[in-house]
C-alpha cells in the first residue's frame, strides 16, 4: 500500500541529500544515507531493549537529530511513536502508563524505569557503540493503509489532550499529494523548526529521504538564527511565525532609513534561495500574505486539521488570493446547507480519538471517517476553498440574517492602530465592536476612520454601529487573551458588558 512512501524509506537506496540539525550551539549536517544507517543502529538497540512491532515509544524532547533517528527507527521496526511536546507533558512513569508507552525518551530531567535520556540515543547511533552483538533487524516492514504509525495529541483548550492515531495510508496519501504539487527535489532545502511532535513536521524528513532534497531541522529557539545560516528554499511555519518575521523585516527597513529595499531585508531574514514559504494550521491575515508577496517571497496558505491532515493548499501552479487553495488528491470537501465544511478522505487519518471522553469522537467523526470541521467555507467555481470563520462565530440577527463575524473583524484589525477586534450583537439588531488598541494611548481618530472604512466595505447587515475601545488593551495578564494570544470573547463581553449594551457608549458610526 505504502510502497511509494513509508515502505520505501529503508529500501529506496541512498538518498542524495543531507539533513542539517540546528540548535543555538550551531549546526551539524550529515548525508541522508548516513541518517538511515544511524536509524537502523538505533532500531537494533530498540529491538535489543525489547521493543517489538506495535509497541509504542514516547519522545518528549526538543527537536534534535536523536528525535529524527528514534522516529525513523520506530518506522523501521513498525513500532508506534507518541510525539509529546515539551511543556505540555512531564516525563514520568504516570505519563508512560497513561499512554501505554514502552520506553519514553526525553531530554528533560527524569528518572524512572523505562525513561531513557536522549543523550543515550546519540551513543546508540555511533558505529561501535555496542558492547555486545546487536540483534539482526527483520526485513523492512510492509505498512497496510490502516496501520497506525504514530499518535498525535490534539491541544484542546481544556482537559487532557486527546490522542489520534495517524494511519500509514493518510501519511502516504498526503506525502504523494504534496509532492505532486510542489515537486520538492535535489537543490531544495526544507526548513523545519516547529516541534517534531507535530507529525506534519516529520513529513519533510520523509520527503527528503524519498525525493532526495535537503532538510534542516532547527530547535524552536534557534529558528531565526538558523534561518540565516541555512539559506533554505522552503520554510514551514505557522502564520504567527511569518507575522513575527514581517515585523522584523519592517523594523530592519525602518532602521535602514531608505538605504535597503524590502526584498533585500526579506532576504536578510530568510536567505537568498527561498522558492516559497508554507503556512497553514491557523488563519493567515491577508496583510501578512500580501507583504511577503510584495517582498518577492511567495507564500502559500493551506487548510487542514489534525483530524484531516492537509486538505487544500495553494501552490505555485494554482493559487488564489483569499483562498486556502484547491483540494488535494485523495481529499473531498463537503459543504452543508449551513456552509459548514466537512472533509472525507480516501485514506482517513483515523475515524476516532483515543484517550478521549465518551462522545468526543462522535462529535467530530462520521461513521466513514468524514470529519466535521466546524469551519464555515465555500468552494468557488474553480475549486478553491475559502474559509469564512468558525460556525460558532456566526451571529443571527432578528431578521434571520446570519453574519459571519471574522471577516468583519479582520477588516478592522487591518488597521495598525487596532490590535484586536471582537464583535457582539447585544440587541440582535446591530453589531458592536470591542477594539483593543495597538498602543496604550489609543488612536481614536484612526479607530473611527477604520470603522467608517469597514462599514463602507461590507453589506448593510454587517455594518458596525459602535466601537467600544478597550482600556487597558487586552492582555493575558488581564484575562482577555488566551495563552495563544487569541481574544476570549465571553470574558471580553463580561468586562465590557455595560458599554456594549449602552447605546450611548463608544465611537458611533456615521
Amino acid at each position, binding site marked *: 500500500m505504502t510502497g511509494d512512501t513509508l515502505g520505501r524509506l529503508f529500501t529506496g537506496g541512498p538518498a542524495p541529500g543531507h539533513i542539517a540539525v540546528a540548535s543555538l*550551539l550551531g549546526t551539524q549536517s550529515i548525508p541522508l544515507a548516513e541518517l538511515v544507517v544511524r536509524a537502523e543502529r538505533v532500531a537494533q538497540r530498540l529491538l535489543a531493549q525489547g521493543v517489538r512491532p506495535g509497541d509504542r515509544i514516547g519522545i518528549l524532547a526538543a527537536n534534535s537529530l536523536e528525535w529524527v533517528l528514534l522516529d525513523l527507527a520506530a518506522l523501521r521496526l513498525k513500532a508506534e511513536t507518541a510525539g509529546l511536546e515539551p511543556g505540555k507533558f512531564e516525563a514520568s512513569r504516570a505519563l508512560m502508563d497513561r499512554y501505554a508507552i514502552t520506553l519514553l525518551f526525553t531530554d528533560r530531567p527524569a528518572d524512572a524505569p523505562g525513561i531513557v535520556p536522549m543523550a543515550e540515543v546519540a551513543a546508540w547511533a555511533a558505529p561501535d557503540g555496542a558492547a555486545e552483538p546487536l540483534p539482526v533487524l527483520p526485513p523492512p516492514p510492509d505498512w497496510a493503509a490502516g496501520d497506525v504509525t504514530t499518535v498525535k495529541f490534539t491541544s484542546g483548550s481544556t482537559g487532557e489532550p486527546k490522542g489520534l492515531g495517524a494511519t500509514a495510508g493518510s501519511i502516504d496519501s498526503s506525502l504523494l499529494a504534496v509532492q505532486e504539487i510542489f515537486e520538492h527535489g535535489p537543490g531544495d532545502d526544507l526548513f523545519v523548526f516547529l516541534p517534531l511532535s507535530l507529525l506534519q513536521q516529520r513529513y519533510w524528513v520523509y520527503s527528503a529521504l524519498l525525493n532526495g532534497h535537503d532538510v534542516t531541522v532547527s530547535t524552536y*529557539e534557534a529558528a531565526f538564527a538558523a534561518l540565516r545560516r541555512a539559506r533554505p528554499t522552503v520554510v514551514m511555519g505557522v502564520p504567527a511565525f511569518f507575522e513575527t518575521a514581517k515585523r522584523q523585516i519592517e523594523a530592519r527597513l525602518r532602521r535602514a532609513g531608505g538605504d535597503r529595499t524590502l526584498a533585500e531585508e526579506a532576504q536578510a531574514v530568510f536567505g537568498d534561495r527561498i522558492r516559497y514559504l508554507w503556512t497553514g494550521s491557523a488563519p493567515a491575515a491577508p496583510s501578512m500574505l500580501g507583504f511577503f508577496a510584495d517582498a518577492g517571497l511567495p507564500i502559500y496558505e493551506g487548510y487542514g486539521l489534525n483530524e484531516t491532515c492537509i486538505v487544500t493548499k495553494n501552490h505555485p501552479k494554482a493559487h488564489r488570493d483569499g483562498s486556502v487553495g484547491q483540494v488535494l488528491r485523495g481529499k473531498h470537501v463537503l459543504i452543508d446547507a449551513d456552509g459548514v465544511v466537512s472533509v472525507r478522505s480516501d485514506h482517513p487519518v483515523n475515524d476516532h480519538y483515543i484517550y478521549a471522553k465518551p462522545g468526543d469522537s462522535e462529535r467530530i467523526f462520521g461513521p466513514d471517517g468524514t470529519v466535521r470541521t466546524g469551519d464555515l467555507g465555500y468552494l468557488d467555481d474553480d475549486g478553491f476553498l475559502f474559509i469564512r470563520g468558525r460556525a460558532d462565530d456566526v451571529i443571527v440577527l432578528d431578521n434571520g440574517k446570519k453574519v459571519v463575524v471574522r471577516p468583519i473583524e479582520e477588516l478592522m484589525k487591518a488597521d495598525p492602530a487596532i490590535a484586536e477586534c471582537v464583535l457582539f450583537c447585544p440587541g440582535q439588531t446591530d453589531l458592536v465592536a470591542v477594539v483593543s488598541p495597538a498602543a496604550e494611548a489609543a488612536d481614536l481618530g484612526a479607530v473611527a476612520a477604520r470603522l467608517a472604512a469597514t462599514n463602507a466595505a461590507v453589506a448593510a447587515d454587517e455594518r458596525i454601529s459602535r466601537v467600544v475601545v478597550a482600556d487597558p488593551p487586552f492582555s493575558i495578564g488581564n484575562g482577555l487573551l488566551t495563552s495563544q494570544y487569541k481574544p476570549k470573547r465571553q470574558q471580553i463581553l463580561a468586562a465590557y458588558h455595560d458599554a456594549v449594551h449602552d447605546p450611548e457608549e463608544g465611537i458611533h458610526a456615521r
Partner: protein
Amino acid sequence: MPADVETAAREQFSAVLTRDVAPASLDLDADMAGSYALTSLNKVLFLTELCEATGVDLAHFTEEDLAEMRTLRDVTEALGRHAAPASAPTSNHGA
C-alpha cells in the same frame, strides 16, 4: 552590565512588541510575557536580533538559558557577561 547592552535591549524589545511602548518606559524587572505580551516566537526573534546588534554570539546560550530569561534585566545581565565593553557593532545588516 555595559550600558550599550541595556540600550540595545530596550530598542530591540520595543521593536518586537505588537503594541507601541517607548524603549525608555520599559520596566527592566517586569515579566516580558505577562506584562508585555511577548510571545515565545517574538522572544526568540528579540534575542536573536539583540545578540546580533551587540555582537554577542547566540551560541553562548542554551535553549534552557533562553527559557530562564523572563525579564529584560535577566536578558541584559546574561548578555552583559559576554558583551565587549565598548565598540560593539550596532549594524543589523550583516546577517
